[in-house]
């Protein structure tokens, strides 16, 4: 065993790793910050429509999310990884699903729950089953159902739409809202969800740079057109058109930013289709027959629970093994 003694080799320490020696340009950290960037339009519209106070909500949510992540990782003697941005993203997304002028202390609780119960208790990034931000929001909705359904009027409302959200208005008062305001966002609703324009801008950006798997938003929208359409055709007087379903409430926001969460969505593309269609189906049922006006959050969480089953169902057959034929191993 003769280690080479040549002069120049001594200065260089060669890295020993296995192949491959090239890597793509992505890193989790980069991805997370790009998602944050793509949320900028939504943040901007939320401030525009609901006032600067919302910045406080966002700040509190991010701060507590990151703080919880840090504290729990330190407690588990793990290398803190808050800089990978995923906790902050969770906080930001949580904030954007809250109603305007929501209480800051409740926001903080939601953030702590989102990261603590939604993510870290499963082992941290990548191990959670449910979308953490939505776990936080669902917790808040169950803990403070009245506050979280109290909606402030947007500053820039064109007419005197009451503070109720389009969906609540539809559900309880059978008032439909025009697509125009729905699209631009000067309506009642959660911070990030009101402006479809801003969401689509961010969403298309993410799809374009291949962070978001296009299958999920597309299948959700398609599903909504199918299922919403069927109900609409059955009884147009009671059931709104699919277009209304798509632009009202958190549908687009959920489709672009929340159902697409890598961790909690299926890993195969056929799985993503099932996932998206499932969300739409459940959403339509909840919106039309449930007691609650909105169900994006619940349908995403519900389908999150199905993801392990979907993954198993859609597991690709190993190359060379015909679909269905089991790799029968005898030993």
């Amino acid at each position, binding site marked *: 065993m003769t280690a080479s003694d040549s002069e120049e080799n001594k200065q260089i320490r*060669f890295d020993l790793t296995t192949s*491959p020696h*090239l*890597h*793509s340009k992505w890193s989790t950290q980069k991805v997370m910050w790009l998602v944050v960037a793509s949320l900028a339009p939504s943040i901007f519209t939320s401030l525009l429509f609901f006032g600067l106070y919302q910045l406080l909500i966002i700040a509190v949510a991010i701060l507590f999310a990151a703080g919880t992540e840090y504290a729990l990782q330190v407690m588990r003697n793990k290398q803190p990884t808050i800089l990978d941005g995923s906790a902050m993203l969770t906080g930001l997304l949580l904030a954007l699903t809250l109603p305007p002028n929501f209480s800051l202390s409740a926001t903080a609780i939601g953030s702590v729950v989102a990261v603590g119960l939604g993510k870290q208790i499963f082992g941290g990034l990548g*191990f959670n089953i449910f979308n953490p931000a939505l776990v936080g929001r669902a917790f808040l909705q169950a803990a403070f159902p009245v506050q979280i359904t109290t909606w402030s009027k947007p500053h820039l409302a064109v007419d005197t739409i009451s503070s109720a959200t389009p969906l609540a208005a539809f559900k309880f008062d059978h008032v439909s809202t025009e697509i125009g305001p729905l699209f631009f966002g000067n309506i009642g609703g959660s911070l990030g969800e009101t402006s479809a324009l801003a969401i689509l801008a961010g969403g298309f950006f993410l799809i374009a740079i291949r962070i978001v798997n296009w299958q999920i938003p597309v299948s959700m929208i398609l599903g909504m057109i199918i299922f919403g359409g069927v109900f609409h055709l059955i009884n147009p007087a009671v059931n709104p058109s699919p277009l209304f379903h798509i632009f009202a409430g958190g549908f687009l926001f959920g489709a672009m930013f929340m159902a697409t969460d890598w961790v909690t969505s299926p890993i195969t593309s056929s799985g993503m289709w099932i996932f998206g269609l499932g969300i739409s189906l459940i959403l339509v049922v909840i919106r039309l027959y449930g007691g609650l006006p909105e169900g994006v959050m619940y349908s995403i969480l519900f389908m999150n629970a199905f993801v392990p089953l979907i993954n198993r169902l859609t597991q690709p*057959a190993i*190359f*060379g093994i015909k679909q269905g034929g089991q790799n029968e191993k005898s*030993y």
Partner: protein
Amino acid sequence: MTIKTFRGGIHPPEYKELTQNSVFEKVPAPGQIFLPLTQHLGRQAIPVVKKGSVVTAGMLVAQADGFISAPIHSPVCGTVANLGKQITSSGFPKDTITIITNGQTEAAFMSPMDPETITPDDIRKRVADAGIVGQGGAAFPTSVKLTPPPEKLIEFVILNGCECEPYLTRDYRFMLERPDAVIGGLKLILKVLGVQKGIMGIENNKPAAIEKMKNYLRDEKDLSVVVVKTKYPQGAEKMLIKAITGREVPPGKLPMDVGAVMQNVGTAVAIYDAITKGEPLITAALTVSGKGIKNPKNLIVPVGTPIKDVIDHCGGLTDNAAKIIVGGPMMGAAQYDLSSPVMKATSGILVLTKDEVETKQETTCVRCGKCVEVCPLNLLPTRLARLTQLQRYEDAEMIGITVCMECGTCAYTCPSNIPLVQWIRLGKQKVFRLQKERSASEN
């Protein structure tokens, strides 16, 4: 014409421009060479020389041990200095014959034969005697591949000219510089196997080579060129067969099970040379490239030349060189000992720079599914790696860890920078050990 390909895969930057126009350059033998006894898959060769033996170029120094093995010939004239151990590009010490060269250039090759009149059995014997091993990377003894069991019906021979690994341009140069040898080799292979149909698979990023080969094959009705998509790992046996024929080689099965035999372009050249010149496999054609090397080149080097000498021949390392790889960047092995020699199947020596190999922080798997999407064999790399980490080898076995060909596609694409291949390789090893134990306990 639609460009054929397979599902999955990636397209890393090619970096072929560094060497694709550099003509093969012959490198003289250095003062000392190392001939490891395992330059091929299979049983280690048995030395037939002793310390102090004098050898000439082309002389047999170690003979094959059984069917799946290959003899080794001295590429130089000189004296056997030692029979000991030497670290090889695998990173582990292997039994090695060390030869001090004496600068003489005479050669003792076998007698040339006429490719037109030669019989299949003679070809087979010559290929075995010449110690030819697959030049595509796996270094499988070629004579074995050319001796399929009689019950297997071989329908075509595919010549693999994909060279899908970034940086490497050896096969490309072969096709440009020695088209006659490539075609000649292919015809010899067809002859051995008694097959009519010969196909060359070439990626569409090598238009010059495609052009050239098509020109040469214009009059051949049974030989053709199939252009395949530039995509890694297009050159992998299973993938290329799938792309060209649409057939899938099942796990644990060989190409011959679906009627194909595949050889690398370089292998064809080696066969041609062994027949027409009587030259055993004693040189390695390789690409020396990468940003960490001063003058990237394509070289023809005597087997056994230490990597260091090859690098020196190319002007040495740049200041920011950080990693030396033998083979391609996707499947090659990192080196730490530059005295390790060039071997029969070495296809490239790459030197990557600091900024290229900078290890990004590894995070946990975010289940993005990208690895699943790109795995050409439809495996679930993330799960294989995780199960190995958790030491659940049986489960890993159930979902096909042993099928993985370690192409590295998954690890390339993983945004979390998980060393997936490293884990999978470990898992495979453990599973193989388990399987061995199992069969032992059954008997």
